[in-house]
């Protein structure tokens, strides 16, 4: 059963919240010289009006969300936020079409960081702040925020939480879902404050520190500079951002155990945390060797570039410090693989997630063993715990779904005239919420030259990837709507 009043009421509240989130950008537009407050103000008013129009007539009373409502609401909320969040872009003169504005906004909220802008430095500060702010809001999750602050979502909130927050299958941090959500948001806020202070100390100005902090912790990748983080030409800034990107790609539940519950044993014995750290270390080592030996970098510069690129890619942030397309082919392919891998479950990173990769690898190893020992029974282990068969199935089917979606979307892009490498990497980079890809959408390029159809397709890919495919597609199945 799906109750329209319930959906309208929650969606309305979300939109009003979104409008409230535009207030800082509006304030900036009033304060900074030469900035035009009109686009933000118009968007703000439209969003509030739409929110109230949904909210006021709906009288849902007390309710608990059902599973179907939760899934539908997750999708509608994300689509709604991406569309209304696009308004400030659309009303400003820098985004010629609605497709461009929605692409940019979706890229922001899904923390992809792919842009259609050829030059970001011409943007006024208000738009800059809104762009990076969308990363920050979308990073930890709009629904998780709603659960934390809207008292009306009770037990049914678990459906929203699971639809949006990967790895929510694992145990809740706190008995109450609202408290779980606010604990996670508190960690996120603390990291935000820390990074801002660190960047300030490293000499970045206040405005750019805020914007880059937002982009880093949401693992987004929008920057205020055309040359991205590379534009600061400061190794210290690069290292600071590497640290916070790494943290943003770590499971926040596990981080809570480390910082708040002070259970370092539980944190360091988590198989995903270990695998994630291992992936980063090994990939950095390989890229380092390649850039030093094959591309002639100095040892320390090579290390910094390698570490930055590996971290920005595996956490699916998409900041740029160096043009990796000038490197040898092997590290480029490794970068593509890291995009697919992504960060930890329960982090702000995109990608398939380290835990799924580990699960799939273990499951494959078991299948191979089964061929030899046909009568034996094996269970797939994940750390110390045996994984339930259902979790193995989910990981495998998510992988398959990603492959199908990827192929379909790439077909659309190539049909619109894009070359194969660019098309494949563009879909990977958007679907896994990374940002820059290879070829004509590489780290030094942008998505401006794509056709409107391609932009819409990639917007859908970004959303599908952020909601980890299932939530996005289950609503389209006939079974979902069957009475």
């Amino acid at each position, binding site marked *: 059963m799906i109750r329209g009043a319930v959906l309208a009421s929650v969606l309305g509240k979300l939109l009003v919240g979104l409008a409230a989130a535009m207030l800082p950008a509006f304030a900036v537009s009033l304060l900074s010289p030469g900035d035009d407050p009109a686009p933000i103000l118009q968007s703000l008013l439209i969003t509030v009006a739409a929110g109230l129009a949904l909210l006021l007539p709906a009288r849902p009373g007390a309710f608990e969300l059902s599973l179907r409502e939760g899934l539908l609401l997750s999708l509608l909320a994300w689509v709604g936020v991406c569309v209304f969040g696009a308004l400030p872009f659309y009303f400003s003169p820098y985004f010629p079409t609605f497709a461009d504005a929605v692409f940019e906004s979706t890229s922001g909220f899904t923390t992809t960081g792919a842009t259609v802008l050829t030059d970001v430095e011409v943007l006024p500060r208000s738009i800059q702040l809104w762009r990076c702010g969308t990363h920050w809001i979308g990073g930890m999750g709009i629904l998780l925020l709603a659960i934390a602050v809207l008292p009306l979502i009770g*037990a049914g*909130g678990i459906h929203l939480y699971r639809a949006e927050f990967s790895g929510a299958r694992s145990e809740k941090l*706190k*008995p*109450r879902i609202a408290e779980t959500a606010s604990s996670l948001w508190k960690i996120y806020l603390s990291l935000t404050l820390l990074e801002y202070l660190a960047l300030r100390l490293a000499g970045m100005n206040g405005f750019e520190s805020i914007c880059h902090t937002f982009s880093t912790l949401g693992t987004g990748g929008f920057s205020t500079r055309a040359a991205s983080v590379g534009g600061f030409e400061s190794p210290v800034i690069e290292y600071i951002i590497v640290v916070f990107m790494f943290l943003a790609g770590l499971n926040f539940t596990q981080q809570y155990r480390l910082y708040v519950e002070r259970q370092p044993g539980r944190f360091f014995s988590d198989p995903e945390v270990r695998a994630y750290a291992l992936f980063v270390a090994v990939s950095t080592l390989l890229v380092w060797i390649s850039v030093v030996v094959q591309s002639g970098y100095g040892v320390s510069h090579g290390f910094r570039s390698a570490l930055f690129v590996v971290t920005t890619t595996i956490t699916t942030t998409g900041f740029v410090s160096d043009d990796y397309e000038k490197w040898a082919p092997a590290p480029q392919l490794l970068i593509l693989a890291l995009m697919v891998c992504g960060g930890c479950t329960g982090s702000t990173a995109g990608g398939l997630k380290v835990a799924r990769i580990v699960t799939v690898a273990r499951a494959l190893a078991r299948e191979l063993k089964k061929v030899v020992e046909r009568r034996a029974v094996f269970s797939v282990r994940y750390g110390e715990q045996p994984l339930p068969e259902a979790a193995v199935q989910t990981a495998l089917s998510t992988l398959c779904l990603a492959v199908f979606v990827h192929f379909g979307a790439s077909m659309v892009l190539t049909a619109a005239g894009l070359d194969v490498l660019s098309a494949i990497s563009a879909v990977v980079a958007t679907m896994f919420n990374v940002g820059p890809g290879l070829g004509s959408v590489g780290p030094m390029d942008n998505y401006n030259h794509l056709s409107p159809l391609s932009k819409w397709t990639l917007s859908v890919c970004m959303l599908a990837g952020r909601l980890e495919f299932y939530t996005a597609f289950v609503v389209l199945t006939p079974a979902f709507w069957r009475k």
Partner: protein
Amino acid sequence: MRILIAGGGDVGFLIAQRLIREGNEITIVEIDPRRCEYLEGVLDARIICGNAASVGTLKKAGSIDLDILIAITDIDEINLLCCLIAQVELKATYKIARIRTHEVDGWRQVCEKAGVKIDLIIHAESDIVDRILRVLPLPGVSEIFDFANGQIRLFGLNVEDGAWIDGKTMEQIQAAGAPKNSLVAMIFRGPQVMIPHGGDVVKVGDQIYVLTSSKQWDETLRFLGVTVRQKVDRVFIVGGRQISIRLAQELERRDKNVKLFEQDPQRCEKIARLVKRTVIVCADGTDERVLEEENVAGVDAFLALTGDDEDNIIACLLAKKLGNAKVAALLNRLNYVIMAQRLGISTTISPRLVTVDRALRFVRKGGVLSVTTFRQEEAEAIELIAPADSKYVGVKLSDLRFPEGVLVGAIARTSGEVIVPRGDAVIQPGDRVIFFALEEVVPKLEAAFLREGQGRPR
């Protein structure tokens, strides 16, 4: 409060649902993974899948300071072990355990000697026996509850065909000369529950709850047309489980003639050794022929207490068809309660609700003296002592704005006076007040009367 519930069955679910709504942090340990998945979806609680008697699982579940442990799994041993672990490893402030064995007193002593402090042992069977014995002579009356040390009584009554109150409004009933201190406090109609106002009508098939002072008990029953059976002599009990045996023993003590139906010959042998005068019939008590042969027509009370809800309902329907007995059915599944009442089985006994009541009463803070739950989760009667600083104290009821769905049922003054208040009555500090409240407003009501930090009655 942080509360750990061991066992996520129906009882655990109901307790958790209430306590969550009242703002407590609940963790549930449940062994069945599929049940865990279900609970995750419907309760805003932390669900831990595992054995409640495992030290590791409990430590994981109760890692942060625990206020109350409620051990209500189906298995006594697990509940006791759970309390033991909670005492040694979790430092739980209070522990509640459900025990089903008839050796409950023995266990109480053992725990005491071993130094395991269990603050409340819930033994639903003994409560149920009491409840059944009270309503046996009253046809149509489903249950009786006492408040204010027995000064006030509440009883459930099924409105049957031909009852004179059928079709009457509350005002008309009052006008017909209702005893002074009596009141229709709640009306259950199908799945609905109402706290009635003057214009609300009573209909056939309703179950109404009537509050009265004990002094006017007989008068109230007579007024409503309930004829008290002068003698309850012959009683049939179907099913030979522990509760049937206890009941048979109690009835023997009161010189009743009891026939107990049990199909399993070995079980019959065993029961025969435990009872004295009761006749054990080794036959199916849900079989029409058997009942007829045993002369069900002349029976005064017919109690279906097998472990099978459907059997109990069928047996009661047969008994009603074949005779004129007061029937009562034991129902484990709570969603059968409404259906059974519609079928004319006025008295239903649910061990689960009894357990929920006992646990809730303990968990609620401060001056709450008793909690009675009606049906699954719809309404409650709450008895509490009015504190001096409540905003509801010292003001005329007609000037108070209570939340929707709350009724002040009765007030027992410290002087011993009992009143069913009208609008001009005033709650005074120290009064025992009996409220009726729809479930969703209970937290609001309690917040108005109780504060954190009030001691739990020990």
